[in-house]
């Protein structure tokens, strides 16, 4: 059992606090949701967890060991993978090469990386796309390629930054099923940042809600759904409307 944690993490940009004393823990096989309105600091927290942004205060730990000062590629080699808003695929490379880059980045030979990439494409369900140039893919497939690329080398933790953005309900449901498989079959701890609150409520074991850089609520989906503070953060008022829940097939 592995554990990734942020301990009282703060980030300030020229005096502006993007994060204030944020605590968060993800364990192996667990799906943790990170939600909050725009500008809440969700992506900043992922950047801190993956070495792209240094914390002004606080620390990030993997199984108790500090990750501060590690560069992004070093964090990835410790088993913490991420995706990006907008995919950030290597658009001129074929899909299989997109996955292969992670393999060689982690020190595999090209032959070994190709073999794992082929297996991963199959597992994610996009094997027929192996030779397509990544920049020509439809949006939904791009997201699956990004997830497949991040899963190369079997990371212990996967941080997904708005993977369902722009997806239809059906596509979001399929994505949910894939994320659940990642946690259950690969034993990977997943941190899911998502604006689709319904998807997060229906999928996650635990949810952390950020607003203006601070944690305003944390708990199981049912508690989050009933939280007045969360509704207020999202809707600007203590609305009576329930937050939607996306039903996901197990």
């Amino acid at each position, binding site marked *: 059992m592995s554990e990734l944690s942020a301990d009282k993490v703060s980030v300030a940009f020229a005096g502006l606090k993007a994060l204030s004393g944020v605590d968060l823990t993800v364990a192996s096989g667990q799906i943790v949701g990170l939600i909050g309105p725009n500008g809440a600091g969700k992506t900043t927290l992922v950047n801190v967890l993956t070495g792209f942004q240094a914390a002004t205060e606080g620390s990030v730990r993997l199984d108790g060991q500090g990750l501060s000062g590690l560069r992004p590629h070093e964090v990835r080699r410790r088993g913490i993978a991420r995706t990006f808003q907008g995919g950030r695929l290597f658009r*001129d490379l074929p899909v299989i090469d997109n996955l292969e*880059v992670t393999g060689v980045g982690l020190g595999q030979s090209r032959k070994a990386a190709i073999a794992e990439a082929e297996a991963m494409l199959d597992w994610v369900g996009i094997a027929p796309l192996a030779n397509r140039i990544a920049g020509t893919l439809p949006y939904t497939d791009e997201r699956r390629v990004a997830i497949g690329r991040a899963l190369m080398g079997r990371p212990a933790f996967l941080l997904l930054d708005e993977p369902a953005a722009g997806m239809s309900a059906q596509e979001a449901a399929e994505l949910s099923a894939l994320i659940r498989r990642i946690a259950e079959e690969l034993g990977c701890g997943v941190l899911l940042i998502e604006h689709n609150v319904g998807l997060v409520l229906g999928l996650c074991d635990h949810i952390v809600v950020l607003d203006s850089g601070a944690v305003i609520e944390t708990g199981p989906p049912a508690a989050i759904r009933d939280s007045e503070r969360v509704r207020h953060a999202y809707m600007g008022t203590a609305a009576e409307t329930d937050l939607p829940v996306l039903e996901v097939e197990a």
Partner: protein
Amino acid sequence: MSRSPLRRSLATPVLLGLILVAFALVAWAVGSKPFNQTIIDIFLKVIFAVGLWVFIGNSGVISFGHIAFACLGGYVAAWTTIKPMMKGISMPGLPDWLMQTEIPYWAAAAVGAGWAAVWALIFGAVLMRLSGIAASIATFAMLAMVNSIYSNWDSVTAATSSVVGIPIVRSVWPYLIAAILAVVLGWAYGISRHGLALRAARDEPTAAAASGVNIPRMRLIAFVVSGAIMGMGGALYAHSIGIVTPDTFYLGLTFITLSMLVVGGMGSLSGAVLGVLFLSSLIQGLRWLEAGVQVGTSTFALPGGVQEIALGAVMILILMFRPAGIMGNRELTLPRAGSDTPGRSGPTN
């Protein structure tokens, strides 16, 4: 599902090698000394362009400094192949063991490659942490620094004086072999895991870092490989003309080789090679026309300077209408059936 990167892209170095062999055969068949020298010069430019491509093409960082490595290689040829007595006159400050060293030209080319690679490692360890225009300016500073040292270290480099007495190699074949070797090295680098990782970092550095790619290290490897190729080219350049000065390896050679890479296409090994062949042929053709062509009893000659104007015009046209160069980032390859994407996993893209 897939073939290995080696088998998928093998056609590229084979085809490029055959084109170079064809050029050598033409030189051999024509048998004219000036034409022979022209083909030798083309092969040397191929070596330089391929050396540049290994770094620029794969990293996306424009380097103005690689001719410094050719300079290092050129002076290695001078230090190791000139007769000891002549070295004693022009470069009296050389250490005794080097003063007495006299090795064949091919060994000097190998030593020149190694010497340039060592310095590429030293310079690169600092420079490869930079990106974009900062890195480009730093490589130019490296070129200026090497030129300045070699222009002033009188006892070891003869400063700005010409170092003469380098054995001249007039046969086209050694240069052909070296050009093919450069192409094979460039191709091997391109299909290596380091080449793939660096191209990914060129296109999406953030995603590459998140994929575990150590970008400065990948750039450094490319810098050292390309430095070695340039060093080999520099040594052979010295043997092609028998004389070196620091300015032999400075701005003129820098900009002509960069132009050839831009015209051919920085995104592919084939672009690097074909850019040299295209521009060199154009320059040579215009030189002949400037010298005058006999048609019947009349001689037609272009005015002097047309060559430079035409070169500039070609550059402008390429940048306007085909900014990715003649090859448009594609590799020369055999037409084939099937669904494989051209150039997949090879040195292109």
